[in-house]
């Protein structure tokens, strides 16, 4: 087609018929088709082809397929674990293929796992047990690049940088506080968590210890002790799990608190807490959960592998609806387990990371003699009020007693009065009757 005589090429004519041209261009094409015989003929040919193609019809899909899919939807909606009654004939060939893929995938995962073990042992650094040593690792290094320090880390580690690139915050907090630091520097939470997990995954021998202490302190300066306690907790990046203050009228005040502080700082915190007053009671305990943690981590890793495999199977296959739904059901169960174990692991990590201190601060009670005595008028008034109240209480009490005990007394009197009267009369007759003294 000559572009000088045909402003539209043949493809554009087709696009016009398909409604794919912009409105202005389509209007121009329509006008051109009216005038150009060649293009008109082309359009007629294209229409004829389209018409011819409509002859190829397809029969309606069987209702069983519709029912099968809709049933699957209903079941998926109704329950998390849907099972469909399969209406299609079994496809053993596809199932067999799925099985083969599953086995191959499992074998590949196993191989990968086996190959990974020596690598992990080789690359994972042998870290110091204390979190402070972990803390001193450079923030930019990856786990694989970290090497074990050649000797124990001497003195307090000055580095306060966290792995997530937030360096100065912790240091600023600490330097601002008046509380002197103990041997180990505080460790940012972000830094500990991945390391704890890595330790467990790599089979690191560092123990996971849940530490707990309880302390009872007797203090003379309750308010000062309380504010010191709050500052102390803040400075050590801890928090109060619970805090109760009791102020009884005739006894010293008392404070009961559960303080959670980073485990590495427990000793330092205890030293500070002892300074709050005279220690009446102190207790410390440590629970080793290394084994439980490692076990949990291994189970979690296994569950994740299983989930990955299931997802892979689901992606690879195009099997029956019932098979797919069963795999999905299994995935759902596995994910639930993973979430549960993950939560358990986080709780355990939190317990390890944060030691808990049950603290009781008791104020030394002093009888307050220095309170000013009331005035004479007040005392007379109080005495009069007390007197009146006492008399009124007495009368009221007597009345109430009579009301409550009266009927019983009457009944008792009825029983006792007659024999008593008889006895009195008899005695009186014997001793006081006229002529009784001369009776034989």
């Amino acid at each position, binding site marked *: 087609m000559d572009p000088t005589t045909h402003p539209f090429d*043949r*493809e554009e004519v*087709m*696009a016009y018929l*398909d409604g*794919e041209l912009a409105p202005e261009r389509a209007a121009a094409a329509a006008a051109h088709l009216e005038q150009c015989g060649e293009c008109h003929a082309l359009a007629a*040919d*294209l229409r*004829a*082809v*389209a018409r*011819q*193609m*409509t*002859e*190829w*019809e*397809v*029969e*309606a*899909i*069987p209702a069983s*397929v*519709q029912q*099968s*899919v*809709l049933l*699957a*939807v*209903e079941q*998926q*909606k109704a329950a998390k674990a849907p099972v469909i009654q399969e209406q*299609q*004939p079994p*496809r053993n060939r596809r199932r067999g293929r799925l099985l083969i893929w599953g086995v191959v995938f499992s074998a590949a995962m196993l191989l990968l796992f086996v190959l990974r073990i020596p690598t992990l042992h080789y690359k994972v650094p042998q870290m110091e047990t204390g979190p402070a040593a972990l803390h001193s690792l450079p923030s930019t290094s990856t786990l694989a690049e970290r090497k074990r320090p050649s000797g124990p880390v001497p003195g307090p580690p000055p580095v306060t940088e966290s792995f997530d690139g937030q360096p100065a915050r912790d240091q600023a907090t600490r330097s601002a506080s008046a509380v002197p630091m103990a041997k180990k520097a505080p460790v940012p939470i972000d830094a500990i968590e991945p390391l704890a997990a890595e330790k467990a995954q790599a089979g690191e021998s560092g123990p996971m210890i849940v530490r707990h202490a309880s302390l009872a302190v007797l203090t003379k300066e309750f308010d000062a002790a309380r504010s010191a306690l709050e500052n102390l907790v803040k400075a050590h990046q801890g928090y109060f799990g619970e805090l109760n203050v009791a102020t009884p009228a005739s006894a010293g005040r008392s404070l009961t608190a559960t303080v959670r502080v980073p485990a590495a700082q427990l000793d330092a915190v205890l030293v500070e807490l002892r300074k709050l007053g005279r220690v009446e009671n102190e207790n410390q305990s440590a629970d080793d959960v290394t084994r439980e943690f490692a076990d949990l981590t291994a189970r979690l890793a296994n569950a994740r592998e299983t989930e990955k495999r299931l997802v892979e199977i*689901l992606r690879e296959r*195009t099997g029956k*609806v019932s098979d*797919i739904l069963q795999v*999905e059901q299994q995935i759902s169960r596995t994910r639930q387990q993973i979430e549960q174990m993950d939560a358990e692991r986080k709780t355990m990590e939190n317990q390890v990371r944060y030691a808990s201190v049950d603290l009781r601060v008791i104020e030394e009670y002093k009888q307050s003699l220095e309170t000013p005595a009331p005035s004479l008028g007040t005392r007379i008034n109080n005495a009069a009020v007390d007197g009146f109240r006492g008399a009124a209480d007495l009368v009221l009490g007597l009345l109430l007693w009579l009301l409550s005990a009266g009927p019983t007394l009457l009944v008792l009197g009825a029983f006792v009065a007659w024999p008593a009267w008889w006895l009195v009369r008899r005695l009186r007759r014997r001793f006081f009757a006229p002529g009784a003294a001369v009776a034989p």
Partner: protein
Amino acid sequence: MIMSSDEELMLEFQKGSAEAFSELFQRYVQRLYGFFRRRLDHPTRAEELTQDVFVAVLKGAARYEPRALFRTYLYSIAVRMLSAERRKSSRETAAVSGNSGEPAQAAQSETSAWVRDAVGRLETTEREILLLREYEELSYDEIAQVLEIPVNTVRSRLFRARMALRELLVARQPRTGGA
């Protein structure tokens, strides 16, 4: 519900409405079946694959984002499943779609069979584009998205396919006597 767009229905289904999925299913089940039926010899496989596409939609509903049209999404899945099916069947048998006797096709009209044969002779991509345009009624843009090729390629190849089909049509005219 009837008036909702496909995309709206899909979002409803994401929120848990089984009715929305049912509506989508009703809208597309026959079209999808036609899609597979015109491309595969075995009606049962077409049924199974139709079913599989809906199951895939069911599974992927949570991940669906209405960035593209729903039908583009649906036919993309269908095209992928068809490719997988063809790979599998080419391994299993040397039989090529379109030249084997199929009981279900016997009832088709002569014109229908001829169209089927003629379309079967087209080059694979051109045939796919032509079928998506004529039977699935996708726009050039949608075909480009589904087949992951440029729109201009869609247009030029569609034109070539139609011209080739026209040649076959012209060649057949004398024999059919204008039937």
